């Protein structure tokens, strides 16, 4: 007696759900048609002055919206404030914006956690600058600008620890190495150092550093500018053991991240190219990133 009526009730319930479904559908269709028209019109206007400020398809009209994660670490940003123009990536972002014709007031920053920067669907930023390394797999999901910085990985250990005196990658084989999740440092550790123990992978940079201070790990691997910042400001009594190239072949480069199919990529690439040929990019690098020359090369 009870079962059939229950089934009937659930049937009615699912019917009700079905009645609701088209409403959702309508709203999604509406928003995505908007997108596709945006895409086509952008595609149509790839003329000579397609990169003029007025003709750009921006997330917020009239403003260049740039995303980055929070907290924003030094030396890439200063005092967790991307809008200061201080720190390497902040400076690069403003230089690119300036080259494209935006004044400082016309640049808006938005917080984009790394994990959501590559989420499918409409993005809340025009481009994201967050030390994202360009790889072919990633380029299937998002678009990248040209590289604006060539990265090497740095190894940091406590001066009192066993691995402070390592002189080669082989010396690091038995070390317990910590990295931040979702970074290319992890791949670098796995493919280049190939440690005997699984590396420890933490959510945030601050967790990696805490683990090093607590001696839960022997060494950390981060990109070299961050390594300099870690030893100089974040962990007392730590030193850079050395640096190594993350990959055998192609150099690893940071790129600005765009929504797949963004019409802005070519314009930003053009701006970056101009900054590079004028020597501006090199100057910004010199201003904010310590020369890598001090760190011994690990082989």
């Amino acid at each position, binding site marked *: 007696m009870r079962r059939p009526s229950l089934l009937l009730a659930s*049937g009615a319930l699912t019917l009700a759900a079905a009645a609701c479904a088209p409403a959702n559908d309508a709203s999604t269709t509406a928003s*995505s048609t908007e997108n596709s028209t945006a895409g086509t019109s952008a595609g149509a206007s790839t003329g000579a002055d397609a990169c003029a400020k007025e003709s750009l398809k921006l997330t917020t009209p009239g403003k260049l919206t740039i995303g980055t994660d929070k907290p924003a670490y030094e030396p890439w940003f200063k005092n967790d404030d991307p809008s200061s123009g201080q720190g390497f990536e902040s400076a690069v972002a403003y230089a690119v914006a300036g080259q494209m014709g935006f004044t400082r007031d016309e640049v808006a920053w938005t917080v984009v956690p790394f994990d959501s920067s590559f989420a499918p669907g409409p993005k809340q930023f025009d481009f994201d600058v967050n030390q994202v390394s360009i790889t072919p797999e990633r380029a*299937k999901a998002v678009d990248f600008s040209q590289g604006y910085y060539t990265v090497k990985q740095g190894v940091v250990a406590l001066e009192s620890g066993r691995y402070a005196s390592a002189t080669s990658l082989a010396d690091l084989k038995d070390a317990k190495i910590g990295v931040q999740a979702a970074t290319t440092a992890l791949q670098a550790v796995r493919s280049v150092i190939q440690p005997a123990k699984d590396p420890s992978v933490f*959510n945030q940079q601050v967790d990696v550093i805490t683990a090093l201070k607590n001696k839960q790990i022997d060494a950390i691997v981060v990109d070299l500018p961050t390594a300099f910042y870690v030893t100089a400001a974040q962990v007392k009594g730590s030193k850079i053991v050395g640096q190594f190239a993350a990959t055998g072949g192609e150099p690893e480069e940071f790129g600005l991240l765009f929504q797949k199919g963004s019409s802005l990529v070519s314009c930003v690439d053009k701006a970056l190219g101009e900054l590079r040929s004028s020597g501006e990019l090199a100057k910004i690098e010199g201003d904010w990133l310590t020369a890598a020359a001090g760190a011994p090369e690990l082989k």
Partner: protein
Amino acid sequence: MTDGHAAAPEWVKSERQLRREAELRARGRRSISAATASTLVVVVTLIVVITTSPGWPRVQETFLSPEAFVEALPDVLRGFLLNIKIFLIAEPLILVLGLVVALVRGLRSPVFFPLRALAVLYTDVFRGIPTILLVYLVGFGVPALQLQGAPGDPVTLGIIALVLSYGAYVAEVFRAGIESVHPSQRAAARSLALTHGQTMRYVVLPQAVRRVVPPLLNDFTSLQKDTALVAVLGPLEALRQAQIHAAMSFNYTPYLVAALLFIALTVPMARFTDHLAARARRREGGGDA
């Protein structure tokens, strides 16, 4: 319903009873076909709506990529074994801790006031702290003390945090079970000259534990999922392995792999809980008619 113990050999169902049963069967069939039809309509509508939506190819590519699935599966599975290990170690410890705390709370003698107060404080504090916070606090706080002999291994620390957190929940579940045993049971036991301890051991606890098995299993289903929180301390468990693959490829399919593995573990547990609950109902209420 019909085949009870009153089966005298010459008894036959009356005409009316047969009609009644036929009617009930027909009604049941109608309900089932209505439910089936409506379910089919819903499923088909959903599939059509989702797959014809403009973003579908993108969703398919980023969430349902077979290559990404195959690529991530071995690592995520390897990580998942760590989740199971954490769960299997934590579960008995939680049971013991929860039971001890619940028993301490039940002590009546005034001498035990400090212990009772401690038990109350423990449940209040650790049930109040979000589990992930506790994992952070224990995982990074304990090694920072640099004490001799304090564990530094992230998995051990993670297990400690989970045990502390879930121990508080389970203590409350046990306490509820103990308090649900009717006072007359206790009074009867005491009147038989059993001590407080014996009363608990032989009369109250067996009944209490049997009553709280379903909520306990519910907590353990929760624990199975929360083993993923240990990821923040560095070990490569399923969620972290999935995240690593997702970050490498900018594809979300690895998360789906991890989700499926967790479901594969929790669904049997949930069915088992249902089964136990149904059995308890049958035993206590004498059938569900």
